[in-house]
Structures are given as C-alpha cells and as structure tokens.
C-alpha cells in the first residue's frame, strides 16, 4: 500500500452557522439555572454567602467559557452528507464517530424542532433503520434544508421495495 491506508473522508457539509449560537444558548441556559439559584440564595443567606456565591461565580465562569469555546469546536467536528446511496454523518472528537446508513435500509425520517431550535430556525433530522443501533442524527440544519432533506429521503425510501431489514 504505497499510497497509504484507507481513511474515512469527512462528510461534505457543515451544519448551519446558526448552530453555534444555538449551542451557545444551550450552554448559557444550562449554566444560568444553578448560577441564578446559588446567587439568589447567596443574596438571602448572609452567613453562607461566601460558600454560595463562590460556586456561583465558578459556575458562571465555567458556563461562559464553555459557551464561548465548545460550540465553535462542535461546529468544526459535526459534518453530514447525503448522497443518492447513503446518509453519512460524523460527530464527536474525543470519541469520533462516523455513521453510514444506506438509502435502501432507511425506515423512518423524523424532523424535530425543539423550542430553542425554533428560535434559531434550526431542525434536527433523525434517520432510523431497522437496527436498534443504526439511527443517524443530523442536528442543527436550517429549516428549509431539513424539510427538503426529509422529503427527499422519504421519497427515495418509499421507492425502495422490501421491509428494509
């Protein structure tokens, strides 16, 4: 093998840029709850103020750092691609994962829009096969693209005979 080893190439498409903002908001909301609670308690309970406000500050810094850095990184790591034959998705960094589901084996195509995703005009598309371990998820696609994709996938899968097992 003079040419080198086979490798999986990254899927073609990145997510929508808005996904970064979406993830950021998620991180901020996630951190805001405990920070707010701790802060409120700290304001009310004078004797334990240090022990309440300290962690609150720590959490706030942590949350802000995560919100600033991680989404950008996730954006770089998440990629997807749909060809005529298959759906191909890559996720993760510390435990990178590639999933490939052939069109002929796709059973359902779900489009989900959470409340937060709605705000950012994003959708998630989940493609399931007959395998309990074979679901392929694409999060953070723009609305139009997601529905287009779902429609395209549904059309292709309906054209395939058999029960896809």
């Amino acid at each position, binding site marked *: *093998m003079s*040419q*080198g*080893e*086979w*490798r*999986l*190439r*990254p*899927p073609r498409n990145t997510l929508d840029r808005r996904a970064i903002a979406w993830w950021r908001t998620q991180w901020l909301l996630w951190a805001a709850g405990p920070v707010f609670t701790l802060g409120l308690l700290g304001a009310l309970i004078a004797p334990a103020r240090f022990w309440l406000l300290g962690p609150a500050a720590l959490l706030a810094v942590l949350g802000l750092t995560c919100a600033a850095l991680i989404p950008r990184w996730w954006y*770089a*790591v998440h*990629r997807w*691609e749909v*060809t005529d*034959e*298959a759906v*191909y998705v890559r996720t993760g*960094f*510390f*435990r*990178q*994962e*590639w*999933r*490939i*589901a*052939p069109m002929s*084996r796709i059973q359902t195509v779900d489009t989900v829009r959470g409340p937060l995703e709605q705000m950012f005009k994003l959708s998630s598309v989940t493609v399931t*096969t*007959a*395998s*309990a*371990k*074979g679901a*392929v998820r694409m999060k953070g696609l723009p609305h139009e693209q997601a529905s287009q994709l779902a429609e395209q996938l549904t059309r292709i899968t309906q054209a395939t005979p058999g*029960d*896809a*097992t």
Partner: protein
Amino acid sequence: MSEPAPPSAESTAEVPESGPDKGAYGAPEEGWRSLDRRTLLVTAVVTAGVVLGAGVPTAVGMAGGGMPLGEVLAWLLAGAGLVIGAGTGGDYVRWRRTRYRVGPERAELHTGLFLLKRRSLARERIRSVDLTANVLLRILGLVKVRIGTGEQTGGESTLELDPVTRAEGERLRRELLARATEEAGAYGEGALAAFDRKWIRYAPLSFLAPVLGASAVGGVLQVSEWFGAQSRLFDWLGDFFRATTVLGGSLILLAGMGLAGAVGALGLWVEMWWNYRLEREAGGTLRVRRGLLTSRSVSIEERRLRGVEVVEPLGVRMVGAARVDAVATGLAHEDEDERTEAKALLPAAPRTLADTVAARVLREPVSPTRGATLIPHPRAARGRRLRWALGYALAPVAVLTVLGLLLTDVLLYVAAAGAVVLLPVAVLLALDAYRNLGHGLSGRYLVTRSGTLARTTVALQRGGVIGWRVRQSVFQRRAGLLTLTATTAAGSGGYSVHDAAEGEGLAFAESAVPGLLAPFLVRSGTRSRPYG
C-alpha cells in the same frame, strides 16, 4: 379490506366467506374463537396456591395469637374463598371478552373489559409463533401462544393467547408460519440436533453456578433471620472457624457454596434443556423444543435469520464446548430474559457439534464460525487490553493500600495478596482477550470474534448488514485503531469488530458490503487533521 371494523366488540363482519381457511374455521361467529375454558381452572388453582402460601403463616400467627382454631379456620376459608372467587371471576370476564381470529389477511385479538384492546397483525408480517406450557397447563393439555412480528420497537406487536389447547396451538403455529416452500429438502428437514444427556456436565461450569451459590448463602441468612436464628448461625460459624483454621474453614465454606451453586445450575439446566430438540420444518422454519416441567417451543423463520453466534463462556470454553445462539430479527423480547431464551439454538455442547449445528442451521457445508480465516488485530490492541486489565486490577489494590497506610497494616497485607492474585489473572485475561480478537469473511458471512469471559464468534450475513458505525477514540486514533460496528436488524442490532487496524478495518468493511463505504473512503499517505 373494504372498510375499517366498526368500533364495537361485536364487529364480526367482513370475513370473506371464500377465504382459503374457510374449511379450517368451522367455528361459530365467522372464525372468531375464544380461549380455552379451562383457563378458569388454571387461575383457580394458581390463586389457591398463592392463598395457601399466604394463608398458612397467617393461620399460624392467628392461632398463636390465641384465637380458637375453629374461628381461625372459618376466617381463613372465607378469605380464601373470596380471593379465589374474585380471581376466577376476573378470569371469567377476561375469558368471555377475549376472542381471536385468524383470517386470510390478518390475525386479530380483541380483549379487555373497560379498555377494549384490539390488536391485529398482518399475517405476512407474523414472524414467530412460540408455545409455552408450565406444569399446570401441560397436565390440562393447554399451551400459551405468543404470536409476534419482526418489529424491533415496542411490545405492542405481540398477540398472546393464554391458553388454548395444545392441538389448537400447534395448528396456529403451522398455519401462521406455513409459507410457500422454497428449496424444500435442499438440506433436509428434520432434526438438526437432539438432546444428549452428556451435555449436563457443562452446566456447573456456567457463570450461573457461582451466582446461584452466592444466592444460596443469601437465602440461608434470610431464612435464619426470619426464624430469629441468625445469631445462632453466626455462633456456629465462629465455633466452626475455631475448630478448623481460618484458611481451611474458608475453603470448606467456599466448597459448600460451589457445591450448592453446581447443584442449582444442574437443576436449572435440566428444567431448561431436557427433551431439547432442534429441527427444521417444511417452509423453512427452525424450531427449538425443550423443557422438563415447563415446555417451550420457539420457532424462528429462516427468512429472518441473519446469522448465528457461537458463545463460549470461559469455563465452558476451557473444556472445549460452546453454545449456539440465533441472530434473527424480531425474536420475542418483552424483557431481556425472554430474549436470551428465545435466541438459544443449542445449549453448551462440544465445540465440534456446535459448529456442525451452526453449519446446518445456516445451510452451509462448513460453519463460517469455524471455516473463516480470521485476521488478527494489531499489537496496539493488545497494549490497550493490558492497560485496561492492569487498571481494573490495580484500582482495588491502590484503594486498599491508601486505606492501609491511613488506618491499619492489615489492609496492606490484603492489598499485597490482592496484587499477587489479581495481576497475573488480569494479564492472562488481557492476553487471551487480545488473542481472541479477529475478523474475516467467509462466503456470504462476515465473521467477528471477541471477548474473553464469554468469547463470542458471530457469523453475520453480509446482506443483513444495514449500515456501519465507525468509532475512534483519541487513544485509538493515536494507535491507528478503530472499532467497526455492522448494524443489522437482527439480534442486538449491531456487531462490532473491536480495535481493528484503521486502514485494514475500513477495507474489510468495504469488501464485506461492497459499495456502501467506498464513496466515503480516501487513500492518504499522511495523517491529516481529525477534522478538516
């Protein structure tokens, strides 16, 4: 279907009179049948058993409390009558309200009093008809029938008929699973494997034995506590250890536990596997029949068979035996236990026989689990296994050492002993785990092997692979390894090749299912950034 059934339990219309099964259903109400009436008897007996179990201690308690015996009996009999009556009455209502029908298109079940449940399965989707009969049902000549589809999701796709007569159960099984007989007789119908008493020697070697032994100890402690004799038991144990040495006493106790576990495992094995028989029936159905007291019959359509799994738990492997499980879609799996039961094709038996049975089941001259040349995995995989093993072995030793330094020297000795025992075992297991890794192709099958405590060799039909999942942790990336999972509709949903060499693994996946991975593969001389 011209129109949906009207929403009442009396909807008996729309059964075509000219259905192919017209003759078979001479029953009233156009094919609707009810369960066997003797279910009432079964319920009454079962409830009576429960009442007896609860009633005797209660009676002892009440009599002990100073109540005259006659009064105690009167109370108890009244209570028992009430409970048994209520149970049987409830079952009567269930029996009255439950009806089923097998039409040319669908199998239907209507049941429920307040909440009407109607379930109907398209006959072409029915993949399994399993019969079970416990002792009581067997005496009465009844069976419980479960009709299932190949759906992986939800338990909503099963019809349960509890109970019908054995003849009716057999008829349903034959009729629902009978399909156009293709290639009949190619590899012959009839028995593929039959019960052999000698297999019982593998029963005590299973992992069940120590578990049963430990639970026997738990049981003794529990019972002694009920009778307030626990302190006496501990006194006796103290005397016992004083009479012998600590080491000798422990060994004797361990031997006793082992013996109890072995006896338990033997008993369970006999109940599970007595009268075992694996056969192929006309129409391409595999059927496993077994059980001493509770008889079970599991049918697996060959259409939904995607391969086999040869499993060798450590103890069983050391004496050269193996178990065979089916990798099939839609086996009944309401809970994990039933799934394990349903997929077993052969209990632990000599390895050569296991391979033969696997070959016969797959209609192959040689089982892929034996015939395939497996590619060993890179040495980096061995390093990973050794590191894990050392981690697992050293963690308790480290904890004990720290505690020993802080508290008492005794723990240091325990830690040292632990290290002496655990480290070699861990290293041996790790080396074995590495040696067991392998993957290869054999005809229509993809074969992968892994595991040490239970070595599993899976032969999966390449046509049954419905996708790939490739995983690579940071450590694997540095070592040039990856874990490939072939996803499938059958069995556990995915079968993995652990820690294969990166390039070779991907090439293997591509050659196993040509064309699926190819568009996403590139050759590279240099290692590129993990995301680019």
